Each structure stands twice: as C-alpha cells, then as structure tokens.
C-alpha cells in the first residue's frame, strides 16, 4: 500500500471512530429503553419481579404480564420502529426528496383500503384477518406504484400520491355506507402496539428482520445512487437493479410494519432527519442510525402511550404525532433546511 493510501485509510478510520462510538452509544440506549419499557405499564411491577419473570418464569399474573404482554410488545416496537425508520431513510434516499415517507408508496392507503374492503366483505374479522388484509393491500398498492413510477423519483412520488388519494377516497365512501366497516377500520386506523401479543406476528417480524439486513447490504450501492444517476452509472452501480431492490425493501418493511401496528406516521419521516447530520452523507451510516433510533423513538412513545391516561391507553400513533412535530421542527432549526 502506498503512503497516500495509508494516509487516506487512516483519515477514514479517524472519521469513522466517532460514528462507531455514536452507534454503540445508541445500541446501549436502545437496550436500556427496551428494558425500561418492559417494566412500565398500567400495572405496577417491581424491577426485581420483572427480572424474575424473564429469568425464572412462574406463571403468576406479574410474570404473565411481563413475558406475554410487555416483552412481545417491546420486541414489536423495536421491529416496527426499525422498519418504519429504515424504510423512511430508503425512500428519502431513493426519491431524493426529504419529505418522502413510506406512506408515499401508497402502503398505508393500500392497507386501509384492503381492511375496509375485507370488513365489508366479511373476511377481515379478527386480528389475523386484518393482518392478512393489510399485508395484501399494502404490498399490492406499493407494487402498483413501483411499477408505474419506477423510471423516475418524481413519477414515483406522483403515482404514490395519486393512488393514495384514489384508495383513500373509495375506502372512505365504503366506510360511510357501511357503519360496521367503519367501526372495524376505526380500531385499526390509529396505529398501536397494544394487544398485538395474540396476533400471528412470526411472519411479519421475520420479513422485517430479513429486509433490515437487506437494507444494510444495499446501502453502499444506494450511496452511489444518492450522488445522482449519472455518477452512479460512472461508479458502476446498476441503477435500475438497485432502485428495484430498494423499492422491494421499502414495500416489505413499511407494509409489514403497517400491517401489524396500523398507520404510525412521522417515524419514517422524522427519524432519518434526526440522524442525517451524524451520518454525514453516508447512506450506510444513515441506515444503521435509523435502525437504532427508530426503535428508541417508538419504545419511548409506546411507554408514554401506556402511562398518559389514568385508565386505558393512548394509541402510540397519537404520541408519535405529538412527538414528531416538535422533533422535526427542532431538527430543521438545529441542522438547517439544507441538510434535509
């Protein structure tokens, strides 16, 4: 290796050191927040009992709550938070549009339309029925948007907005005509992590895990694409292939997250902006940071959703909406619109 090469490598390592430190710090924070979230809820359970429930399960009410209600819920928050945040980072990179979020692919509208249609026709009853309908609806909507808008980011965004408008309008009309369908949709329409412990989550969570790994593997190629298609071509990146793969990842990540938790806005839009500065223009770091910060944001919001009311819960989507606005304004003011 030449002297110049060694110098460049050393400089790169120096740049990466604080980023690695930040990532490790984020992971530690994520672990801490996850543990705290398992200890927080409507029923007061001592930390000792929480630990005992995890390590020495006896089947008492406290242990059931920790193991069968809170722990799966924390796991779901981590998966959904990571899925939404990473899909947000991917769509913003792909569309080169800082205001893009996963819903722009029509995923949320597709899931909502499918649940409305399914309820009207009677096959979206129960959690499994709703989950299945939401998965099918979101995937079909995203595939349609991707098929029509795959050639350019602008076309992709316009197609997503148009399809969202059409599906939302038709679904609204159906709900207005069918009160029971409206009821079924109402329960799903405000995203929540509550009561998902009885839903069949194995497949959606596996899909999310696989796609998160896929996003990391694709991130270097996206780095080139972020510089523009011409530069990406020059660097040897297969633009069409990378874009198609990114669309698949965004579709599955946001579709699975929306299917299991309902629409949770702002996480996909907000989290990438919060980590854009430390990522310093690197898509791999952006993906890694969003993968850690997304779960942290959702876990904190979910804890808030559990303790805000004296009885019952506030859906987590309401809390993220309250957190999302101020956090986004803070990010814009802190880093400037240019960085977005």
């Amino acid at each position, binding site marked *: 290796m030449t002297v110049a090469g060694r110098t460049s490598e050393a400089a790169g390592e120096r740049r990466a050191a604080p980023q690695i430190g930040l990532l490790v710090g984020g992971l530690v924070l994520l672990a801490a927040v996850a543990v705290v979230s398992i200890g927080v*809820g*409507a*029923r007061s359970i001592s930390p000792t009992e929480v630990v005992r429930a995890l390590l020495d399960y006896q*089947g*008492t*009410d406290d242990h*059931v*709550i920790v193991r*069968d*209600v809170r722990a799966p819920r924390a796991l779901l928050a981590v998966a959904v938070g990571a899925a939404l945040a990473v899909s947000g980072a991917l769509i913003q990179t792909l569309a080169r549009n800082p205001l893009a979020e996963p819903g722009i692919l029509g995923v949320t509208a597709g899931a909502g339309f499918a649940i409305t249609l399914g309820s009207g026709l009677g096959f979206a*009853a*129960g*959690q499994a029925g709703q989950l299945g309908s939401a998965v099918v609806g979101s995937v079909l909507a995203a595939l349609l948007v991707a098929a029509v808008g795959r050639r350019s980011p602008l076309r992709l965004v316009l197609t997503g907005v148009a399809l969202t408008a059409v599906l939302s309008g038709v679904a609204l009309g159906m709900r207005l005509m069918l*009160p*029971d369908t*409206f*009821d079924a949709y*109402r*329960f*799903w329409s*405000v995203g*929540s992590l*509550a*009561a998902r412990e*009885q839903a069949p989550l194995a497949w959606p969570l596996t899909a999310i895990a696989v796609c998160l790994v896929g996003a990391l593997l694709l991130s270097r190629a996206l780095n080139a694409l972020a510089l523009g298609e011409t530069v990406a071509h020059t660097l040897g990146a297969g633009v069409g292939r990378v874009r198609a793969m990114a669309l698949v990842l965004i579709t599955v990540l946001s579709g699975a997250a929306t299917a299991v938790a*309902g629409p949770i806005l702002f996480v996909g839009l907000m989290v990438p902006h919060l980590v854009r500065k430390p990522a310093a223009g690197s898509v791999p770091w952006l993906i890694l940071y969003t993968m850690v910060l997304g779960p942290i944001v959702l876990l904190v919001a979910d804890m808030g959703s*559990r303790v805000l009311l*004296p*009885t*019952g*819960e506030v*859906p987590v989507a309401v809390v993220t909406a309250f957190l999302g606005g101020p956090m986004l304004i803070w990010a814009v003011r802190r880093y400037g619109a240019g960085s977005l």
Partner: protein
Amino acid sequence: MSLRRSSGLVGAVALALALTGCGSSDSKSDSSGKGGTRVFAADNGKIKIPADPQRVVATGYAVPVMIEAHAPLVGISSWKRGESMMSKKDLATYKKVPKVAGELATETNYEAVAEAEPDLIVIGVPAPVLGDIDVKRLESIAPVVAIGPTVPSAWRELSHKQADAAGSLKQFDAVKAKYEAKAAKLAEKYKDVLPQLKMGHVGAYGETAKGTFQREFGSSWGTNIAEDAGAKYYGKVKKKGPGSRAVSEYPSLEELPESLGKADAITYSVNPDGSVPEPVKYVMDSKLWKNLPAVKAKKTFPIRYTEAATYGSGMQTLDAIDKSFAPLLNR
C-alpha cells in the same frame, strides 16, 4: 346484529349526559286537561303536547318502546340495532311503519315527517345529537319532546316517560308487569346462589386495538337486568364519567387481575347469536383471564341481549340469563 355500537353514538350519549346532567330524570308530566293538551317535562323543556296523541312519530331509543307500548305510530326512524331483540309481532310492526329517518339523527327526512301528519314527535336521542336535527322545523309540524338515554339502567324510567308522552302507558305497564314478574321469579329461583356471589362483568365495547377491555359494574348495560334477577356486581369505576362511563370503564388488559381478581363469578356480553364479540374474545384468549379465580372455578357466564332497553326485550335478556346461570343450581 353486532353488539358493538358506533363510537359516534356512544360518544354522543356520553356527551349528552355531560351536557344535560342526566336531565331527563324528571319524569313527571303535568296534565292540564284543558283543550286536550298537557304540559310535558322533556329534555328540551316543558312542552305542550296532546293529552291523547293519535299520530305519533318516534325516533332513536323511543322506537322500540313505542312499538312495544302499541303507540299510534305513523312514522319511525330506522332502528336496526334493536331488530334482533324484537318479538315477531313487534318486528312486523317495525317493518310496516313508514321510516321517516335513518339510523342517524342527521338522516331525518323532514318531508316524510310532515307527510305523516303527526300530532306528537318523540325524539329518543341524546341532547347533543339534537343539534343534528332541525327541531324548529319539526316543531312547525307537531309538538316535539326529546327524551334521550342517560345511564344504561335508566331505560326503565326513560321508556316509561316516552310511553307516557305517547299516551300508551296501559300496554307499557302490562309488559312491565310481565317483566317484573319474570325477574322476581328468577330472583326467587337463584336466591340461594346469586346474592352470595361477588360478580364482575366484561362488556363488548372494549377496544382490542388499544389493548383495553370494558369492565362493567352494577347498573351498566351488561349488568342491570341480571341485577333484577338477584345478581350482585361489586366495585365501581375509578373515575366517574358521564353516561355509561359512570358505571363502566376501559382499563388496560394488564389491569384484568386487579379488576376481576376478587370476583367469585364473571359474566360477559355475547352477540345475540351467542358468538363471542372480538373485544371479549381478546380478553378470554389471554393467560391473565385463565389465571382469574372465577375462571379457574369455571364460574363464567355469557349473557345475550345486554343491549335491551325496553321491558319486552329485557324479558329475552332474563331468559338468556336464566339459561346461562342454570348450572349454578347444580353445584
């Protein structure tokens, strides 16, 4: 019919109670006897109405009451939620009487009301929902009395008041007497078992998506008729709210052991066909439910027709309760 009513209606009922302060509890009517009219105290004030109405239009909760009381109906609103609780004869009447309004107050067809030429209009909706109705326009057609729902168990007084306004107390009292006789018979039948049990109830309006369940206490929809049969429901809401919120609450599933752990027996609402509604199924599928002493002792009882708000439909609820509680007599 689904047990789950639209949230809008439930919210409206709750809001109505907040705003009216349960104002319809004043059920006295003041008969003047002059010119065939009398002054009637309703949610919308003291209204001069015919002493013996001949052509009545009824909406909302007043519909099943008026049908049971054989009021001289010339128009009613749609009342699909109550169809499964109507007797064959009442259902035939319900289908036969012209519909002058839909399920919602906003769906009032003023021209159809006018065409019916009523001499009295009885509106059985909560006071805030009255804002969705052009009451002045209705008043230009006939006197309007609004007698809306309050706490669930108050259907007895409210239905009496509605039947009174329509001058149909005779038939109303006959059905009421049958109900009370049936309830007394059940109370006698279960007197050695029911009063000794501390009971709790899981209602059908919990929101599964929020991880909550509906815990109903005495005087609520799921409990008030069972109480007539001698059941004793323990506990009260943590924070009293308006309307049904005074007698039921929506805690997190995590609070299930705390909420129902002391119950000797648990009743739960089911659909008219006996199927378990999704919010109740969510509770029953949890391990916390299976840990409850009452569940371990196999003292859980489904109750159908918990939405009954008339004496006639209440008798079906009593029959359902009798059928459900029957195993208690063999223990």
